[in-house]
């Protein structure tokens, strides 16, 4: 069963093509490692798949239930971690699992704390919780471990090992390389 695929995917900003002729197919348990220098288009690929950017050419398909977490994705500073998960559960029509998820990601003490008071690492954990809350079939993760401490990285590793869907992981961290079953270097 194909969970995500791209055909001849391309995106340009102004006159510059950031990605071109990208093709892939992801099935359950595939972890596609997207690597490349800064500006090579890793985040752009994930944003296109998440529906945040439209491609300039080509097409893609992705399972309706997907999770997205990125370094530059912001959370609502006025809402608590629990309120974030309650809100996303309501709009996604799924159980909120707030206690379970925040415990799993080591945020149980900050559950009623506003996200505006969070450190970068705590925000990264909250974004991961939001990404996996509805038990997605595809996970789109952009530099997920960049802001995480050792415990956070371990939680992420556990999450990826247990995850049964397909993962698209954009990273520059060598440590993340061990999760990959497929690799794609963008230049």
């Amino acid at each position, binding site marked *: *069963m*194909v*969970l*995500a*695929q791209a055909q001849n995917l391309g995106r340009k900003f102004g006159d510059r093509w950031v990605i071109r002729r990208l093709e892939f197919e992801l099935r359950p348990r595939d972890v596609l490692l997207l690597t490349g220098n800064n500006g090579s288009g890793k985040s752009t690929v994930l*944003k*296109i798949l*998440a*529906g*945040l950017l*439209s*491609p*300039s*050419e080509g*097409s*893609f*398909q*992705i*399972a*309706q*239930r997907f999770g*997205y977490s*990125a370094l*530059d*994705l*912001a*959370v*609502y*500073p*006025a*809402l608590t971690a629990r*309120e974030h998960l309650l*809100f*996303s559960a*309501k*709009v*996604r*029509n799924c159980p909120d699992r707030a206690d379970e998820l925040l415990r799993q990601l080591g945020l149980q003490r900050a559950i009623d704390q506003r996200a505006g008071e969070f450190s970068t690492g705590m925000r990264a954990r909250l974004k991961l919780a*939001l990404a996996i809350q509805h038990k997605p*079939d595809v996970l789109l993760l952009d530099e997920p471990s960049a802001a995480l401490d050792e415990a956070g990285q371990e939680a992420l590793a556990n999450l990826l090992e247990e995850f049964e869907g397909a993962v698209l992981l954009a990273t520059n961290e060598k440590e993340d390389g061990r999760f990959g079953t497929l690799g794609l270097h963008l230049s």
Partner: protein
Amino acid sequence: MASISPETSPAPWLSQVRAVFAKEWITEMRSRHGIFVSGLFGVTAVIALVFASYTFKPSPLLAAGILSVILTFSSLLGVPRLFISEEEQRTFDLLMVLVDPGPAYFGKTLVTIVTTALTGFLLSLLYVVMVGIPVESWPLFWGSILVLSLALGASVSFAGALVLGAANRWVLAAAVAMPFLFPLVAMGVGALGAAFGDGRESDGWRNCLAILGMGVCLLALGPALVPTVWRPGSNHPRKK
């Protein structure tokens, strides 16, 4: 966005609207920035007017014009914030990942209308009391404020939604809202003027109905049109 199996059923449209409304309401009540800015502008404008006109009392039509302009600018100052701030605090992507654009827009617009109505009611009362305008028909007066708030909120929300991603969003939101706001001001003057005793009350109610019609039109158009701006077709062919 194209999707392939396995399919799931997303939350119903109205549930998403309710969730967005609750989220926006909590956020707005915690920061109170939008209401504060709108209210402060309105209060300052009313006090400035009282200060400048203590030697004369404005005619019913002039008073209606001034009140309509105060309400319009006060909504214009505070309201697009709900949309623009989403981009400024970089949470717009999170919203788009979680919620469909239609309900996200509608939920935000409803909060906008409620906050516009709240500031509108307070400012109008303050205006009438401080300037000392006799109100000939209170039901028409409050009816006008209610429909004006609805239409102003819908118009400014629409403009705010269109300028996301643009340079100079705040100024642009005001410019883009202009074609929708001018008819409202014109009709608002007619409705409030009648409430203050200028012209027949039935004409005032007719103006109210026209304002309501325009507000409802924009409310209905928004969720249908805005998604094409917020999430342009994922398979957009660039070639002609």
